[in-house]
């Protein structure tokens, strides 16, 4: 019903129905293409039987030692295809790649502190709020750094929440 495959450049011309959503950012070309060039396994799209783009996930893998982790940069589903767990499927795929292929310790993501529907969804998928990043979004809104431990992190050390919030310049990665 859903074909999930690597995202390719041509999809950029077909994802309008996903990206016209007001919460989905349309990045500049070098942003997308850098992800494609560096982390092609972390950028997937789901298409329906009529070959329309239903949604996509983009992410990367980075860090050192025990902070080697997968990161979800964006996950978005067109409104017509919501409420059928497609985001979950896409998230699982990225987690599996981080876990099995890249042997990462955890997967993390940032979400607007006000975006309750998204936070609830990530919690359902097993993510916990690891720390709060003050004024992460355009210097205004706080972001929540949410994490899910992978099999490498046997003791789930990576997701023990930090006691205090941090500022964006304390972040290890962009």
């Amino acid at each position, binding site marked *: *019903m*859903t074909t999930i495959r690597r995202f390719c450049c041509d999809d950029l011309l077909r994802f309008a129905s996903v990206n016209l959503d007001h919460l989905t950012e*349309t990045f500049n070309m070098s942003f997308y293409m850098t992800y494609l060039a560096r982390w092609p396994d972390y950028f997937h799209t789901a298409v329906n039987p*009529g070959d329309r783009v239903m949604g996509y996930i983009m992410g990367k893998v980075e860090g050192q030692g025990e902070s080697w982790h997968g990161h979800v940069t964006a996950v978005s589903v067109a*409104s017509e295809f*919501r409420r*059928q767990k497609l985001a979950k499927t896409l998230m699982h795929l990225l987690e599996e790649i981080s876990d099995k292929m890249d042997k990462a310790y955890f997967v993390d993501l940032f979400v607007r502190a006000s975006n309750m529907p998204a936070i609830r969804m990530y919690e359902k998928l097993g993510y916990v709020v690891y720390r709060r990043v003050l004024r992460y979004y355009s210097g205004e809104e706080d972001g929540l750094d949410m994490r899910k431990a992978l099999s490498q992190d046997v003791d789930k050390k990576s997701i023990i929440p930090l006691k205090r919030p941090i500022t964006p310049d304390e972040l290890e990665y962009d």
Partner: protein
Amino acid sequence: MASKFGLAGGIPERRVRPIWDAVDSRQYKSALKLCTALLAKHPTSPYALALKALTLERMGKPDEALSVCLEAKELLYSNNIFHFDDLTLSTLQIVFQRLERLDLATSCYEYACTKYPNNLELMMGLFNCYVREYSYVKQQQTALRMYKTVGEERFLLWAVCSIQLQAYFSSGGEKLLAFAEALLKKHISSHSLHEPEALSLYVSILEQQAKYDAALEVLSGDLGSLMGREEDKLRLQGRLLTQACNYVAASEIYQKVLESCPDDWESFLHYLGCLLERDVKLPKPTTGEHTCSSCSVDSNKTSLSEEVESRLASALLFVQKLQKNDSSDSVRGPHLANIEIERQHRLSGNSTKFMEALVNYFHRFGHLSCSSSDVEIYLHMLSGDEITELLDTISRSFDASSVSVKALGLTITTFKVQELLGTLLSKSTTDLQRIAKGMVETFYKNLPLSRDLDPQESMHGEELLSMASNILVQLFWRTRNLGYLLEAVLVLEFGLTVRKHVWQYKITLVHLYSYLGALPLAHRWYVSLEVKNILLESVSHHILPQMLSSHCLQQTASLVKDYLRFMDDHLKESADLTCLAYRHRTYSKVIEFVQFKNRLQRSMQYLAVKSDSVILSLKQKSESLEEVESVLENVNHGGGLVDLSSEDNMKHLTFNEDLEARPWWTPTTSVNFLSEPIDESSTPACFRAKVCKHKSTEKDGPKMRDAERKCLVPRLVYLSMHGCVSSLRETEPNGSVSDITVGEMKTLLEKYARTIGYSMDDALSMILGISSGKKSMKDFAPDIVSWMSFAVFINAMNLWSNESVIPRTDPSSPSSWEIVDSLVKICIEEHLTDANRILTCPGNKIPLLVQMVTEPISWHLIIIQSCMRVVAPQGKKKKKSGPSLRPNMPQLQGIQRSVQCLIETLRSVQKWLSDQMSPEEQGLDILMSYLQGTGDEGPGQTFRVLEEKPAAHASELGDRIAQSLEAWSSTGVVRRIVGAEHEVLAEFKKMVDSKLKLLMSESASLSSVLH
């Protein structure tokens, strides 16, 4: 850039770092100061010069930057004492690239590599230069040299990639694939391969040569373990086996894929295709292929052979097993597969269970908002009776009166099925009114379901308002009653009042407002979509065509500018991203990036907007010859655009617009059903086929010819200006060497005529016929504006040419000036005759009038101004050479008559516009009166639902929704429409006023010359 520190050309890092810091923080002045100080100490350091050039370029001084770069290059070439380092070269490269002189950067690296033949860093720099220039052969040679020098796997693969690029993009490149294969084999035998992407590249090289068995052998060997995910490997094996015609093995492999990914629809189709040994690729809903017989019951086909029957039976068993394995409702693939298997039966005449499969699907998933589009392709295969049966069955399966998410979902699905199939077309007007009203009521009734949703989340039932609005537009199309169109707008505006983020409503409103003549409102909604970056290429079509034919020159210019900047910038940086893909060894993306760059470069919209942008500047500046000249000078006098319209270029254009979200009544930019009368007899199937045909034939449509024609306009304006100057300067030496000839103009006008579908001779007799009243204006439709411009350019060419371009039968035949005059008069007046208020007659009348004034009339005015500049120069009245500007009396009289005619015509436009502009309250009353019918017939029923419901049930909706509804006012929406239409008329009138002012002053100068 901050990382580019080090000891360069003997300069210590501490002296260099502040310069980079200053550049990075855009402190260019202080950067330049530091550079000057550095150069004082190291006057012959190429690196210091490169830094200075970099700073100058950033300061916007490209010429100085280039000369400093060249100085640095000279030093590098001439002097042996300097150590060649990549830092200097890469800094120079950055500047050269920004100056669009890739060739110079390449030659620096080439020189350096000859001098230091084994320096890997320099060779990598050179390789990147070739990537930026798309020189695949040289890329290949350089990569092989690197491979020979250090023997690293990645360099070999860079070379193989370069070979593959040649195979894709240059003729004869295929032969090289065997060479690439041999290189890889040799390397693998001694070193094996170590990267998944390397393996994929190797397999694709074999696949490209149709060596499927060899590829399969590689995959099943040790190297196969490089593939990261088992499913990916299996899919690849399946594809190769299919290509090798080993269907049994392929279907087994796909079966394995489906066992781990049961929802993978593509793999299921491959599986079934291999099992049946035939292509089961489904037609796409948008191509219209589904109306072809292959999808419907074909009685000629013999019944399924037993063999096929048994294979289908085994497929069914397999699919049923998959269904059992997953009891959740999130995996729909195996259930859809069931329908496909029954379709296969039906294809051979055995159709008993096809309907049953569809019904089962809807029973299980009908509440999901995508269920109808999941099975869209299958719905189109149903007969009329079957459709009725299906709808009845779904409707019976739930209680439509209950308020629940599931019942709402099913209600929406039944409507969607009807919308997809076009069955609503055959309903009566009364039924349609009832349905539209019912949809809005259902939306309203179910609003409480969304009361606890986050404001960011889409609400339940949002599609209902889109569908209701679609039906109302259809009612308008059928009855021409404006009230329905207003209701269509109101429904969507209401929806946006409930939740302001529904982009689907916004896009439909963009089109509705454009059609209603309220372009400012269309533009406002479009802007709220925040379309940017790549969406500019796929989504701009919703607004751009309307804006281009409007009075909003400034806002259009900014849309055009944003779009061109995006495209230009991307095409410039694209190769850098290809370099990045090489560096990160993502070979599959190297090929993809190059293909994508080609696709964007050949974009039809990009080509069209390039000429639109010049034409737009000409429109904006048309009242000042100096500014027109400078616009033209900046674009090589329009020559570049003419080159772009070459046959070869036009043949390879790509269409990247995402047409999916366009309303049903305007499936492409060049089609608007509302402008055509409805064909009552057309069946839903005919209509659907028509929509699909428009979408699939976009490429051959009028849009291509429009684009081709637009490419010619700037050059024609330039030649016209040039031509009338030469014609009036009688004393100009005849032998003056000028490469601009009337012959060129003739060739361009012949091409121009061809884009309207005429030969030059036929086009000439056409304009003669119409201007003399012998032919009807109707023959000009729909290219009326192009025809007028054609006549204007013909006049200019006639002035220039020694022999008359227009066949003149006798001396009393009209001059070319008179032809233009009467054409302009006839065409414009035709559009002013209708005394109805424009407010109540939506359509393209205003855009057409605006285009006539801003295009042909502007071009004609430019020609008149050019003539006048010769005979009555402004400013310095000193006549240096006296008689050289002696006026040509017959021409001058022609000009004078033309000016007079334009004045009269524009005055009539002016008057018409003034008559059309009425006080806002009056306009509001007129429009509201369309909505206030009280009976059960005619528009107004949906409107009343919107008026009455919100107030009545505020308490059930929750605070948030109730609050947002407080802002709702139908009158407010209608008032804004009236205001926007008024704004359009007023702005257009300003334009006409200004043209008239110019004409009056030309008329005065003419009188003084003539008397």
